[in-house]
């Protein structure tokens, strides 16, 4: 297949041609190399958990050497994916919590959102009266760090969920205890000769995934807001066209804001800006990629260079002085691509060293000094740029970003009638859902996947949803796709149905809202949970859904699982490796409904998937509207009695 048929991003087309000319191999070439992928792996019934294996299930060999059948093997593989994803998000969160423990009034890391910290401290019974804000911060950080390995009890944030949801978790026994413990339990139970029951493996996966969404990711998001500021609405631009011809272009790629915040600061350092000019550049141009890009665009409006599938292509422009990365979703291939240009590929985290990269360790203790050194390395590299080899594609899109839950509340206040309701609540959103002006709300999240055409599923599904009066919120590389394709501009209202367009007009928002990075999917839980509580319902009662049209990472598997476990139907545009077990499919796409009130649905055709989501939301509305009516009658009766 023509490589250009593998992405709908026109900038990518231009750069794929250039890569070919420059003799650079990209993900798209490697994808073509894998003519057909192994069916056993695709179905999830290949096991290499012990030294007797690998074993694979066929009609002739229906069991592994130890006797594990296809259900056990698929279940174990699935559980380990969830554990991998949870570990990634949670280790990220752990670093942020450590950073908060280091925060000080005159240090590199300060408390930016004191109010949010105080609210959290109160939630966690940390004394706040008359105490120094940093003392509070340190104690809160310690409490958070205990969430990773506390010996007793269950996760603290669970009590923020609507009560019926808490009860479901409790009754099913899937309340996560400590994050690391859940991950370790999965690694234990999936060891040879341990759990041999797929129901139990999926059950365990749900508990571990909840330790991600309602603990790890939630800590990551809340703490990042406290340390770096809660995102507010701002303007930015997206796609590779944001690179600049005569500036030092630095791309920040990865996930953790502790690093990226320092790089943002350092790139504004007058000394470094002066140095850039000395080198003959007009200044320093910072652009983000993947989730770190999302973090800095949400908080500083830093432009988004691109998404997961564009990481190599960014370097192929020949205009990138440095690609600075930390952890997660970083192609090891970048080392080879960077070799073909002057680009410095700088790894910074001891958790993610990559052979062939320039390793410059970043440590929270010496954060700014480290950030300064790294940016300086990039600036000094400007002189090595080969003008002949530069090609910056021209496309870029404007985007309005920064919709944290708090920013959303702020926007909703615009439509509150001060003689009826107080400000600062989700009621306007709830009202729009109840009346049907908004048919529903859907979180479109997740990655890019080489199995499909890059960005096609994201963009198709978002457009279909908004056309049908369904509000879209997005994070991760879904957000990058939306930004690149202009869906985050206020003008994109004209692509929305009349109901959504009216809401966008009144509330002054684009039809697709950028909620942040992958850990910020926890913001979606906050908003849905908050709306459910306001309506006196469970999250599974609302006409909402989650979709990962182009998911690829284990983090996405963990996200999908905790979203389902939270009662939100989840739709996947790529089949996970579970079809080898009919039982796995039965549970994930069926029985979960009775357990947690939501399930998975998979369809690899984005157009069809969008229609399924829309139909399901309409079906859900019948149930939702009945409940609304019940609640209204109760209120009227109570009013009559009073």
């Amino acid at each position, binding site marked *: 297949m023509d490589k250009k048929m593998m992405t709908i991003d026109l900038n990518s087309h231009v750069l794929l041609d250039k890569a070919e000319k420059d003799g650079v191999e990209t993900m798209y070439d490697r994808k073509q190399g894998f003519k057909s992928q192994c069916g056993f792996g695709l179905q999830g019934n290949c096991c290499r958990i012990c030294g007797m294996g690998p074993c694979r299930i066929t009609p002739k060999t229906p069991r592994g050497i130890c006797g594990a059948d296809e259900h056990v093997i698929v279940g174990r593989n699935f559980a380990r994916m969830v554990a991998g994803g949870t570990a990634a998000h949670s280790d990220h969160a752990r670093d942020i919590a450590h950073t908060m423990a280091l925060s000080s009034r005159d240090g590199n890391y300060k408390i930016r959102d004191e109010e949010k910290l105080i609210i959290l401290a109160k939630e966690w019974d940390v004394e706040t009266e008359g105490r120094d804000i940093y003392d509070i911060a340190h104690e809160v950080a310690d409490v958070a760090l205990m969430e990773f390995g506390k010996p007793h009890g269950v996760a603290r944030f669970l009590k923020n969920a609507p009560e019926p949801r808490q009860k479901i978790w409790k009754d099913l026994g899937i309340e996560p205890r400590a994050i690391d413990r859940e991950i370790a339990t999965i690694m234990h139970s999936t060891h040879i000769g341990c759990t041999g029951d797929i129901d139990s493996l999926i059950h365990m996966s749900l508990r571990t995934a909840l330790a991600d969404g309602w603990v790890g990711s939630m800590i990551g998001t809340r703490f990042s807001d406290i340390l770096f500021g809660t995102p507010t609405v701002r303007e930015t631009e997206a796609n590779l066209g944001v690179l600049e011809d005569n500036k030092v272009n630095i791309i920040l790629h990865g996930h953790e804001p502790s690093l990226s915040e320092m790089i943002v600061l350092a790139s504004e350092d007058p000394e470094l800006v002066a140095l850039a000019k000395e080198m003959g550049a007009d200044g320093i141009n910072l652009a983000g990629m993947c989730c770190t890009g999302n973090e800095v665009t949400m908080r500083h409006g830093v432009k988004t260079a691109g998404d997961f599938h564009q990481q190599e292509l960014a370097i192929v422009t020949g205009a990138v002085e440095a690609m600075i990365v930390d952890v997660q979703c970083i192609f090891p291939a970048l080392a080879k691509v960077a070799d073909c240009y002057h680009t410095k590929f700088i790894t910074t985290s001891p958790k993610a060293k990559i052979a062939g990269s320039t390793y410059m360790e970043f440590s929270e203790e010496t954060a700014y000094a480290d950030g300064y050194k790294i940016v300086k390395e990039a600036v000094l590299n400007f002189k090595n740029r080969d003008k002949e080899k530069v090609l910056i594609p021209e496309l870029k899109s404007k985007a309005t970003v920064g919709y944290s839950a708090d920013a959303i509340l702020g926007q909703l206040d615009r439509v509150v009638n001060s003689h009826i309701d107080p400000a600062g609540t989700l009621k306007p959103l709830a009202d729009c859902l109840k009346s049907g002006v908004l048919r529903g709300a859907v979180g479109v999240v997740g990655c890019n996947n080489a199995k499909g055409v890059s960005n096609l599923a994201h963009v198709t599904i978002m457009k279909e949803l908004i056309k049908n009066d369904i509000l879209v919120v997005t994070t991760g590389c879904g957000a990058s796709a939306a930004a690149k394709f202009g869906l985050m501009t206020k003008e994109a209202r004209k692509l929305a149905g*009349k109901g959504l367009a009216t809401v966008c007009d009144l509330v002054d928002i684009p039809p697709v809202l950028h909620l942040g990075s992958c850990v910020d999917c926890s913001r979606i839980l906050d908003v849905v949970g908050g709306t459910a509580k306001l309506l006196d319902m469970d999250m599974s009662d609302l006409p909402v859904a989650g979709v990962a049209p182009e998911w690829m990472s284990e983090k996405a598997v963990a996200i999908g699982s905790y979203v389902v476990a939270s009662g939100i139907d989840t739709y996947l545009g790529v089949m996970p490796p579970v079809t080898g077990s009919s039982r796995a499919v039965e549970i994930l796409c069926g029985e979960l409904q009775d357990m947690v009130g939501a399930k998975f649905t998979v369809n690899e055709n984005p157009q069809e998937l969008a229609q399924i989501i829309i139909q399901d939301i309409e079906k859900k509305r019948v149930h939702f509207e009945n409940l609304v009516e019940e609640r209204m009658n109760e*209120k009227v009766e109570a009013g009559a009695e009073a």
Partner: protein
Amino acid sequence: MNLYNIIFTGSEQALAAAKGMLAEAIEKNGRDHKVAFPDTAYSLPCIYAATGQKMNTLGDLEGALTVVESLINRTHLLEHALNSGLATALAAEVIEAIKYATMEEPYQAPCAGHVSDPIIRSLGVPLVTGDIPGVAVVLGECPDAETAAKVIKDYQSKGLLTFLVGKVIDQAIEAGVKMSVELRVIPLGYDVTSVIHVVSVAIRAALIFGGLTPGDLSGLLEYTSKRVPAFVNAFGPLSELVVSAGAGAIALGFPVITDQTVLEVPMNLLTQKDYDKVVATSLEARNIKIKITEIPIPVAFAAAFEGERIRKAD
């Protein structure tokens, strides 16, 4: 029932009523029987503005009802709900037009019914200058006459033009509210369908002062929502027909504030059960800022009283 279904049902009821009345009228008077409202150059103003077509005979009205029918699509999207509201409005205009075509005196004092072009022209200047800061449509029935009078007099004292529809007319009379065009309180009629006569005022304002081309429906809706500062207060139990007519108001950009428990739509459909706050809620919902400072004298004082002659007995 969900809000959209209520609206669709109301529209279907309005359509069915109009069809029935029309069939009967045609049977009695023939298709060529003349149809017109008095003193207007705009035929049936709502239908004319929406479709660009003038209605001259009962036979023409059959065509109008086909348009009404085409506006009702039960798909649950706001667009269709608003269109359905407009359908109700147009069906109401057909019903009112049949009344004028077939009855000797369809409206009697105190009810005004159709409002003539000259009156609209006379109201145009104060509306443009903001001397009339808003148009209130008070519809239905308040819990008691005092409440009704309080709300209406409050609007009057703020200089708003208030139209009354339904039982609230009797309540206003009972509480001694004085009514006339000069006093800016106009009782329209007892049937819900008579509310179309105020819609007709808004629409003719758009045609006369906004220079809009008849048939340019989206231009019309934009003009009314941006330029005609009207809103609706719907009191008492709401029938499907009233809710559906309310959707028509919302389509024109006029928020509806009610004392009933309804599925609220921010800025557009609001519940305010505290009658002391209805006026303030409504003004905020329509973003109406009162220019004249209220003068704290016992008698309500505002431009609305300019036309009032103080009678000796008072």
